[in-house]
């Protein structure tokens, strides 16, 4: 992977401008000091309970999310482009969702094939003709970016259902400010601490018009409960926003109005930031065996008496096969070219593309279209002949269920590994909020493949994360001496 873009070094031992001050700081610290600093940071995470739950353990083991202390730095001008690109992309995706659940113009005109949409597991017929507040389907989004070998950012995945990780972004920043206060101040980094407030404002601006107090709607966060792996994040965000953290059994629906059970009686709920998947939201409408949901919730939603964020049925737009059409959507709805390109993607329903993929499986990454979290993947260059054989059979059996992308050289950034600085592959995920306005907190969660050479950054697969610094004033860290 020597073709990968190096975030820090322009050439061997020549750091890029905006990384120079960081290099100087790191060089000034002994391996022992580095190790001690990392240990202190790990301890902070443990004590503050910044953890994720490991499934399948009786005592409910919690593990800290591995954190790397070396920040990933993005110059201001590069960020400006990302911001424009993501705003454009999410605007188009929202128009697309509105379209396919109403007139379906884009399908009628053949820009996106009809069968692709209707065969998607996450397409919800129930949403047809239903109007959502402000026509915003996806108000909370976390997009995975990669930097290609030529230095250009591209979109790897749109996470349009219930993206997670934003609490780690905030936690990483808090810890880094404590560890490198002087360097942080001198660099001139945009703050990100206002994310919870922006999230609350976004949610509130989507309140139904018939809410009892439209200017002060009752907003709650719906969690699947304490055994969910992201439970820490749910409690953290609810606390930071000052809203109730509810489970399905706290809510009930009567006459198409949603209430929560409080000790002072039933209180009407207007906006639900749900961290429960579509399938489990309402046993009367979706999966009947769900005990995480609220019976009747969908009817209340359809009646316009409660807002769900994100809306139901957004998963159709982050289907990995539909993803391939996003640049066309941008052209179709906005009459613009995509600012951030896609990663080249082969649709396995197309005979020619399928054949090409099958012929080159050892240099491809094959992904199941509806999965996330790094599950159901074949990483060609690191696969065995048997795994390739298995995927070949699966692709031939269900071509609609898979897509293929050339194995990408994710860019690399310096990381602190056992007291020494080494290069690891990274993949940033900025968080975008969209309602009455678009908010991107400058930064995001930079995920790191902590195993040497690994390309998988998902936390469930041994990945970690690091803080992301977006620099002010065109950003060369110019204030750093």
């Amino acid at each position, binding site marked *: 992977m020597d073709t990968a873009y190096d975030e820090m070094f322009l050439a061997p031992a020549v750091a890029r401008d905006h990384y120079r001050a960081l290099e100087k700081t790191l060089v000034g610290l002994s391996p022992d000091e580095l190790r001690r600093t990392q240990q202190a940071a790990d301890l902070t995470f443990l004590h503050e309970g910044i953890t994720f739950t490991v499934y399948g353990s009786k005592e409910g083991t919690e593990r800290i999310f591995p954190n790397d202390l070396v920040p990933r730095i993005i110059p201001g001008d590069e960020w400006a482009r990302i911001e424009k690109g993501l705003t454009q992309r999410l605007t188009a995706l929202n128009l697309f969702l509105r379209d396919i659940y109403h007139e379906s113009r884009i399908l009628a005109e053949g820009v996106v094939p009809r069968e692709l949409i209707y065969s998607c597991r996450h397409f919800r017929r129930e949403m047809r003709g239903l109007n959502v507040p402000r026509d915003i389907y996806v108000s909370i989004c976390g997009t995975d970016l990669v930097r290609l070998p030529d230095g250009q950012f591209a979109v790897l995945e749109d996470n349009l259902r219930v993206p997670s990780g934003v609490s780690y972004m905030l936690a990483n920043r808090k810890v880094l400010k404590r560890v490198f206060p002087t360097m942080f101040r001198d660099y001139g980094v945009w703050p990100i601490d206002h994310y919870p407030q922006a999230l609350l404002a976004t949610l509130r601006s989507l309140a139904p018009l018939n809410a009892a107090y439209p200017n002060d709607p009752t907003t709650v966060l719906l969690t699947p409960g304490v055994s969910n792996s992201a439970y820490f994040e749910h409690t953290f965000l609810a606390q930071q926003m000052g809203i109730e953290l509810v489970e399905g059994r706290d809510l009930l629906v009567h006459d198409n109005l949603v209430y929560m059970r409080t000790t*002072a009686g039933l209180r009407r709920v207007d906006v639900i930031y749900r961290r429960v998947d579509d399938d489990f939201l309402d046993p009367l409408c979706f999966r009947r065996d769900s005990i995480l949901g609220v019976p009747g919730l969908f009817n209340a939603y359809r009646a316009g008496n409660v807002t769900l964020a994100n809306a139901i049925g957004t998963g159709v737009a982050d289907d990995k096969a539909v993803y391939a059409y996003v640049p066309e959507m941008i052209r179709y709805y906005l009459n613009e070219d995509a600012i951030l390109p896609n990663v080249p993607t082969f649709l396995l329903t197309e005979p020619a593309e399928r054949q090409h993929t099958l012929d080159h499986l050892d240099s491809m990454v094959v992904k199941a279209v509806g999965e996330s979290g790094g599950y159901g993947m074949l990483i060609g260059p690191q696969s065995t002949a048997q795994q390739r054989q298995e995927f070949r059979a699966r692709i031939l059996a269900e071509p609609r269920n898979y897509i293929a992308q050339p194995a990408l050289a994710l860019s690399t950034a310096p990381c602190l590994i056992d007291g020494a600085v080494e290069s690891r592959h990274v993949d940033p995920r900025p968080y975008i909020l969209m309602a009455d306005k678009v908010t991107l907190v400058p930064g995001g969660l930079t995920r790191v493949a902590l195993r040497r050479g690994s390309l998988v950054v998902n936390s469930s697969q041994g990945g970690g994360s690091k803080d992301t610094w977006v620099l002010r004033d065109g950003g060369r860290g110019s204030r750093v001496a």
Partner: protein
Amino acid sequence: MRPPRNFYARTFQRDAGMLSRVASNLYWMSRYLERAEHTARLLDVELQLWLDQSPEVGAGRWRFLVDALQIRGIQGRLDPLELAEALVFSRENFSSIVSCVAAARENLRHVREQCSSEMWEQLNKLYLQVIERRPEKGWILKSHELFRSVQEGAHLFQGITDATMSHGEGWQFIQLGRYVERSDTLAALLDTHFDRAAQPADQPVDSGEYLSWVGLLRGCAAFEAYCQAHTAEIRPLRVAEFLILNPDLPHSIRFSVDRMNAALHLIGDLTERREKTPSRIAGRLRAKLSFSQIEEIMAGGVAAYLRSVRSECAQIHDAIHQIYFDYSVEAELVS
């Protein structure tokens, strides 16, 4: 500019009421922890007495313990070691110390964001401490330390709760749980005790019964307080009055009911449900205890009196559930 008409009502409504599930978890957490502490104290006292007694008397004391702790389903001959293990370690017995601490922790774990992190850490520590213990050979003779640590752990948790948690509605539900449990377990203990003793007289007890009366006082953490009030001369009538009607002793029925009542009133105010049943029953019980005199109680039969206290505690518990946790949605929507 004047605030809009419903401004204050609105502000209040927002603050009124917490999630029923959260309130219920805090209430139960507190009940379980109180029960663990009570069981630990009684066992601690009994095991000390056991050392002083002849084997025949000892066997009777175990039956007493089973009744006083209201453990059902234990019949026939009681093997003290097996019994103590059942009361301490058993996971099948939901009232064992380990079960109670585990249940308290589980209740708090689900509402962790509602309590302070110090509270969670302390209860988790206590839990890890008790599940680590195993009934090894001869553990019972060294068990004092375990019972001590459960009581201390519970006291520490209470102190931490008072010092680090906001004294709002959630805190009041914790108080409520503790004092409902305490009133009930105290009444059961006294009932079992008086049931086996002669009619309490205003006479010093003879040396044969002395130990069991001291045991009762110690089981209510009240021996030293009794000596301060009445000297070490044990008179059954005074003990009865002290444990039932004393307003200042933390482990008297009167004190517990007073606190229960105060918590219910505050919760009633916070949720605008003061007129509801649990407050009414608790108020009535409190009035009864404030105005009763020990001679009257004895004349009417102490057992009957204690049983009526227990039945009212049970009614209060049911009413709390009906009004705050598990209310009928239909009735709510109509009102």
